[in-house]
């Protein structure tokens, strides 16, 4: 093979994703200038939150192999800390958020030092149990969390630097940009981890804990490091959610369902890759929104495929939106059966086999 073409190929492969990433980021920053639909912005913000949660989980679950199904704990701790400080102490969220991060990391280190002693499925169960402790505690500490009634704050105080008001949070746009910036930050953090000693150690722990241990890796230290990084971003996602949606209660931000949803974003997209959680979020968020809002049933009827007054039509119209959890479940089964490495792994395999055919 000619050496010149091969180096050019390598360079081409390296610069193309960089250019695409830059283009995508610029597009996303410009998007609110062109898209004024609040619903579209709403979906985008939910996608950002999902990307942040998924990527954060991915550092612990995907790279380090510790499948936590209790990440709602860090999400909830972030959301509650920020909102409690705002509600009862009148501390502005841009300080409260960092208090939330600190609380989530502290929580993580306590949980980690207990749960990381056990491995595999036992760790999964322990992570669920600990998150449930947080949910039940939040329900039963009304003095702190307002219990099952939750906390409702719809007005976020304006963000000022000096006397200049940067934003008053009256529209969705500021939340959009905050979500975008944090999403970029978590992806950058993942990249940094991947290309460092931490990343190598995390993956070694994922592949074989005993081998990693014998190669000089302090398992407790590095697992806790992964959890701490993960907790920082999960907590930020929680705070952003709490401020954006306005209302939080233990049944939403500390729920087991949320923990499962975080894991699913990664499994469906592709575990242990930078792109995986992004793909998962981009697929799952609009999909579940469409199901919940009855958009799919309406579309089937509008397209004439299903008659509105037929039994199937009435069934779809009345029941499909209630079935979104069921369909979610079916989707998960399909992905696990047919795309064990997630959508990203599936696409890569497709490309690899195409390349072989042409070669």
């Amino acid at each position: 093979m000619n050496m010149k073409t091969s180096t050019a190929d390598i360079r081409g492969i390296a610069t193309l994703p960089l250019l695409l990433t830059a283009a995508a980021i610029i597009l996303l920053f410009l998007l609110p200038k062109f898209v004024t639909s609040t619903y579209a912005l709403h979906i985008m913000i939910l996608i950002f939150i999902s990307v942040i949660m998924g990527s954060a989980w991915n550092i612990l679950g995907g790279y380090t192999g510790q499948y936590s199904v209790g990440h709602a704990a860090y999400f909830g701790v972030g959301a509650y800390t920020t909102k409690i400080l705002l509600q009862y102490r009148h501390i502005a969220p841009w300080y409260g958020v960092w208090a939330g991060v600190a609380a989530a990391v502290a929580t993580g280190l306590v949980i980690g030092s207990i749960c990381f002693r056990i491995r595999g499925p036992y760790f999964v169960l322990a992570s669920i149990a600990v998150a449930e402790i947080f949910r039940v505690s939040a329900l039963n500490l009304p003095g702190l969390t307002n219990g099952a009634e939750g906390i409702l704050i719809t007005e976020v105080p304006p963000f000022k630097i000096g006397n200049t008001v940067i934003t008053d949070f009256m529209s969705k746009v500021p939340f959009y940009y905050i979500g975008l910036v944090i999403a970029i930050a978590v992806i950058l953090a993942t990249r940094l981890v991947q290309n460092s000693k931490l990343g190598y150690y995390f993956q070694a722990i994922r592949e074989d804990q005993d081998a990693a241990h014998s190669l000089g890796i302090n398992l407790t230290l590095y697992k806790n490091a992964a959890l701490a990084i993960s907790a920082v971003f999960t907590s930020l996602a929680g705070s952003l959610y709490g401020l954006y949606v306005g209302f939080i209660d233990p049944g939403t931000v500390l729920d087991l369902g949320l923990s499962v949803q975080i894991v699913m974003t990664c499994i469906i997209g592709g575990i242990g890759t930078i792109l995986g959680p992004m793909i998962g979020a981009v697929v799952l968020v609009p999909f579940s929104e469409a199901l919940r809002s009855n958009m799919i049933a309406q579309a089937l009827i509008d397209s004439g495929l299903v008659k509105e007054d037929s039994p199937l039509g009435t069934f779809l119209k009345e029941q499909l939106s209630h079935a979104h959890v069921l369909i979610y479940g079916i989707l998960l089964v399909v992905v696990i059966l047919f795309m064990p490495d997630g959508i990203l792994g599936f696409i890569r395999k497709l490309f690899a086999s195409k390349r072989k055919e042409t070669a």
Partner: protein
Amino acid sequence: MALLEIRRVSKFFGGLAANSDISFEVRQGMIMGLIGPNGAGKTTLFNCITGYYPPSRGEVVFNDKRMNGLHPDAVCKLGMARTWQKVRPLARMSVVDNVMVGALCRTNSLTKAREMAMEQIKVVRLEQRLDARAGSLPIGERKKLEVARVLATQPKLLLLDEVMGGLNPAESEEIIELILDVGKLGITQMVIEHNMRAIMRVSDRIVVLNSGEKLAEGNPREIVANKAVIQAYLGESDA
């Protein structure tokens, strides 16, 4: 000078003594063979030495430092590293990344770790397989990878647990050469092996375990001539 001293080490699992009252020393620069029938307690002794189990009684002294109670990662950092009887490749990582994980024990820089890894990969002659996934290697290459990875941690003492297990004669021969090469680098080794021909060739000294106890110790010639050892391996003769 003794690099490693095993002082009256015992390990009990419930009522079973997997190791009882074992003492010997491994001198700087030597290759020590550790043999014995199945269930003699060889791997248990390795686990006690490298921190996977705390010994129930006795002491492990390495480089004049008491090792009891240290975790495997600390043991590795102090310069004692082991391989596994059942190989443990980091399956979804490449060959070079596997060895880099070992090298990162001594450096924080990926560039430096890569250089160190390449050096050890050359020692075991896996240069052709740098980017292969460790999980895709055949058994012979996995064993070599394991040795390269553990060498990259820059051990003073290397403990090899049956590196020839499951290999064909040609592959075993390569591993024998490898052990001798590593010995020439000045690295002290302790080798568990069932392949008698191999152990006789590489070892300067041999310790024989049987039912958890030390049965004999000596140079290869003495061990082959030792009646107790022959009995343990072949059973009582009726004649």
